């Protein structure tokens, strides 16, 4: 079927009104050479019942593991049902960008609340309404940080490799040179950083907790940046901010990252949500939509899209980014999640993930042949060196319907634990590791 509403009889009336006898006449401007005479080589249409059954079969080809110890940029956190329910309410789901503020206050207010929550979480002053995902948000933040006539950016090698890939793509586009900062004990090397030629450098980008789960000394890096008049961009896991020092506290004025941990389904990688939070000085440089508070003509408190002069539909080639459609519904959902977990809940999620990871680390490293690769403090992920082949470990885990750690190398794995794991699940995991070893 096709969701065409009009009946044949009505179509006739419409054609008459237009003054033609068939719809094809409307296509007269299309050159004959390209006008299709054969139907598309696709299957015939199906009823929704058949489609749903088919899609169900496809979905069943994916494995949903009972427990997972794999993170690496996409995390299984607990998502309250109320969050799913509220974010699918039809007004939110089926509206477009709130151009008509009078009939979009629900949407606008909820984005304003989202912006506020992100600012609060990061201790910063400005947030936009969303960017596609963490990687693209990092790229946009990089672009925000660029200084005139300085076309080099230093990036930590401990940033998520997929993000580095994206940064390299954006850098190629903008003719920016990327130089990587070495790592030392799994952390961005301050020594290496200090040795860099800063001549044409605009900014430094680090991630904390970094790809390996380690907490970076962002404070020193941001101080170094300030001292050398560089911009410092921190990519941060927002859940960690329930517990760890914030960008704002560390003097970072530009933070960004992936908000998936804040209540979004893992969904094979999307839709996720890139966030950017910054100090006031970036207000007119930040890309994407921003909602601001105002009043209507009757002085009723209300919300509108504001500062649109930054955006492509007004500035065109001079816009700060080309972003138009964004991740509004993801932002709404994260906002609902943040309110559902609330001030205390978000701390608990962070602390619980931290505790689980530390308990597991202790247990794993008690097993012969398993050791931590680096010793630094970490949040909820850590790297284990193992004498056993990681593939073997993961195979054994899979047989128990457990998704094993992220493989970094034949004998190196990135282990992740969130609050979604119970002690029983962790102990079972440890047990299997113990057995594989033998």
């Amino acid at each position, binding site marked *: 079927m096709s*969701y065409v509403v009009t009946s044949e009889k009505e179509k006739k009336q419409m054609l008459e009104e237009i003054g033609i006898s068939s719809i094809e006449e409307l296509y007269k401007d299309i050159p004959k050479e390209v006008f299709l005479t054969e139907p598309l080589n696709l299957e015939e249409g199906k009823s929704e019942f058949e489609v749903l059954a088919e899609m*169900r079969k496809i979905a069943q080809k994916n494995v949903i593991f009972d427990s997972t110890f794999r993170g690496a940029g996409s995390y299984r956190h607990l998502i309250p049902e109320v969050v799913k329910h*509220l974010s699918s309410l039809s007004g939110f789901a089926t509206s477009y960008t709130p151009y*008509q503020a009078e009939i979009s206050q629900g949407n606008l207010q909820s984005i304003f609340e989202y912006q506020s929550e992100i600012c609060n979480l990061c201790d910063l*002053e400005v947030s936009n309404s969303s960017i596609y995902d963490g990687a693209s948000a990092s790229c946009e933040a990089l672009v925000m940080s660029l200084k005139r006539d300085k076309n080099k950016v230093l990036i930590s090698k401990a940033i998520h490799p997929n993000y580095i890939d994206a940064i390299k793509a954006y850098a190629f*586009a903008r003719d920016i040179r990327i130089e990587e900062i070495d790592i030392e004990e799994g952390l961005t090397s301050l020594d290496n950083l200090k040795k860099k030629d800063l001549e044409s450098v605009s900014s430094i980008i680090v991630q904390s907790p970094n790809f390996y789960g380690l907490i970076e000394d962002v404070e020193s890096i941001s101080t170094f940046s300030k001292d050398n008049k560089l911009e410092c961009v921190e990519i941060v896991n927002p859940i960690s901010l329930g517990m760890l020092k914030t960008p704002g506290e560390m003097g970072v004025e530009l933070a960004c990252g992936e908000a998936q941990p804040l209540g979004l389904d893992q969904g094979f990688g999307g839709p996720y949500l890139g966030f950017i939070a910054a100090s006031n000085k970036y207000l007119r440089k930040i890309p994407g939509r921003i909602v601001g508070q105002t009043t209507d003509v009757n002085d009723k408190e209300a919300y509108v899209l504001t500062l649109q002069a930054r955006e492509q539909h007004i500035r065109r080639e001079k816009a700060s980014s080309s972003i138009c459609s964004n991740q509004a519904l993801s932002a709404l959902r994260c906002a609902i999640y943040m309110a559902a977990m609330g001030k205390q809940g978000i701390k608990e999620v962070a602390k619980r993930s931290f505790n689980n990871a530390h308990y597991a680390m202790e247990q794993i490293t008690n097993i012969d042949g398993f050791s931590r690769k680096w010793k630094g403090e970490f949040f909820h992920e850590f790297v284990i060196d193992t004498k056993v082949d990681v593939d073997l470990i993961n195979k054994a885990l899979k047989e128990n319907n457990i998704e094993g750690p992220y493989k970094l190398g034949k004998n190196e794995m990135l282990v992740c634990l969130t609050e979604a794991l119970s002690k029983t699940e962790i102990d079972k995991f440890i047990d299997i590791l113990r057995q594989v070893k033998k």
Partner: protein
Amino acid sequence: MNLIFEKSIENHRCTILPKTDIADYKIDDSYLRKTKVKLPEIAEVDLVRHYTNLSKKTFGVDNGFYPLGSCTMKYNPKVNDSCAALRGFSEISPNSDEEDVQGALEVIWESDRSLCEITGMDKMVFQPGAGAHAEFTSLLMIKKYFHTKGDLNRTKIIIPDSAHGTNPASASMNGFNVISIESKNGIIDLEKLDQVLDESVAALMLTNPNTLGLYDKGILEITKKVHACGALCYYDGANLNAIMGICKPGAMGFDCIHLNLHKTFSTPHGGGGPGVGALGCKSFLMDFLPTPIVIKENESFKFYKPVNSINKVTAFYGNFLVLVRALSYLKHLGSNGIREASENAVLNANYMKAKLSKTFNEPFSGYCMHEFVLDLSSFKEGYGIRALDVCKRMLDFKMHPPTMYFPLIVHEALMFEPTETEGKHTLDKAIEVLEKIVNEIKSGNLDLTQAPFTTEYSRMDEVKAARNPIIRYGN
């Protein structure tokens, strides 16, 4: 309505975590956050009321007609949402092993194959977050393509003045110079094109049907000319809804393309997103696609890294659950349904246009594709009533106004895109309302500059918002 922060009450809680048997681990104080986490404290019931009532203040396609030109606000079939909600899709990690996510790869593969058939491209990927992101990515591919060929002087992108703002913005994000060419009703003037075409041009970006809803008859000549000077042709597929099953951009001579699956393929717009920027290209550009792409090898699906890949533009595979919806829609419509959708989108637009032409000025006469533009300058001149005022008045009739002031080449533009999912009765109702509003303008009995009159909120003080921006609570 009060902000959720204003509803926060100390120690109120919504969600509670499971009990745990794992004790607290110590961490050096220097790592810890000292500032308060200023998130709301709110109970589930109050959270539910807050958002349920906010959703009531948000007009969506499910509430009424939404003929927002260029945005293709189709009705979004509910079965698509049911597909996306299947746990086999929503609860899998993008970092899972290939063998555990064969279903997900199948979704990507099948969508790729179907959309290539519809567009005449050779490969389609879904990593970009939306249309603009796919534009950026495609131009990056084009840039890398010429770099790889050693052709380093192609620094320009030609874009007609009628183009969507994302086109020039995406070009300049890639360091290209934007050459804007004047068009007539969005139709390319071949002579003007000749004037700007040379070896410094990397590509032409074109929307066809264009943003005025017109199909550029000269399309084959245009793409031929562009190719003749060694440049590529980029197709902005935001308007594909007019021509599915009728003609293929690939056959028109385009080398790469983006589709807004959130428009043409009927996934809900979510108050601004997420969408999917599907990116298609001819085979000679495949090596430049963002990594990874999905290939099929003996009945199983694999990821593959194109040799000259521009790398990545999002961390994983784009807005996958949106893609699931689009695939569900594709399967639902099938070969015939897809063509039928386009035909009826065009029929609906022409019907509205024909009827409204009795009351409004049109910047051009003749048939349109899936959308059309009215020019309200005469009302502004004659009565001081702007396109904006007409839109605001429409709100009183519980319908969403059309797109205003776009494309920029038409002053006082109103751009209608009814889409095929609206029935004649809905169009008739909208036409009736617009005629009524014109009568109001002419009679002068109602001051439309004050509209809307019956909505919960009245016109906004936008200047205030911009002059002293308050963009978060409590600052």
